[in-house]
């Protein structure tokens, strides 16, 4: 009986935790992506493997200053255009 209660509390907790986390749908270079609401751009770029020194990022049509990547939060509906430069000229 006690084990059953513990499991119930755990499941309720899990449900509450997952409800608290909202997902955000954003578009990156034209493709839809799901991610957690409120993730910042710097972390997102790192997770995706972008090299920060070789890219330019537009968010909803505006250039994002390099110094603002860490404080730029990604929200549902955001549109990102990430240009990753390669060598040659």
């Amino acid at each position: 009986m006690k084990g059953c209660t513990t499991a119930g509390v755990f499941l309720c907790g899990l449900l509450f935790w997952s409800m608290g986390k909202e997902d955000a749908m954003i578009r990156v270079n034209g493709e839809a992506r799901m991610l957690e609401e409120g993730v910042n751009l710097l972390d997102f770029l790192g997770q995706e493997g972008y090299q920060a020194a070789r890219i330019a990022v537009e968010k909803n049509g505006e250039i994002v200053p390099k110094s603002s990547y860490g404080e730029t939060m990604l929200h549902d509906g955001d549109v990102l255009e990430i240009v990753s430069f390669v060598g040659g000229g």
Partner: protein
Amino acid sequence: MAFSKEEIQEALCRRHTPEIQERLNKGRVAISGLGGLGSNAASALARIGVGHLHLIDFDRVDLTNLNRQHYFMRHVGMYKTDALREQLLDINPYLDIQTDCVRVCEENIKELFAKDDIICEAFDVPENKAMLVNGVLEQFPDKIVVSASGMAGYGDSNMIRTRKVADRFYLCGDETSDSGAGMGLMAPRVSICAGHEANLIARLLIDGI
């Protein structure tokens, strides 16, 4: 044989029409990086009589540059700014050509590009490309950047394209062919990409697209 400014203007007007030539005459374009992209793009813009060209590079012409860059044997060892200026004035001696033999960095962008309306990014190193594009878009509210990425090797010509990334930011190239992956830069494909940059700049000057 020397020609007068009027004779050259008349010749250009006959090819382009006076209305279009007037817009090209007023053009203020910076070419940042005078390698395969910049030297070829600048030559194309000089030929159609873009009135004000600003050439920027810190480097000298090397023998290995001649496989794709618009220089000749006699230019090896010269600063690229001087070597290209000399050639462009051979095409049209009445163009206003400014040169800056400097290395572009975040700190000098504001001063360096103050008088230019359109900036042609023509660097070689990806970090420098990103630095210039970000720097211009961040530091100026109204200047347009025409950049290039992906033109190495001898792959399909038709993979090189021009697209508008954002309001003041255009990108030419296939966006994937990296010069670092054992794939050399060669005149034909680099020139195609330089042509994309130059043609887009012509369109911006003529039609303001």
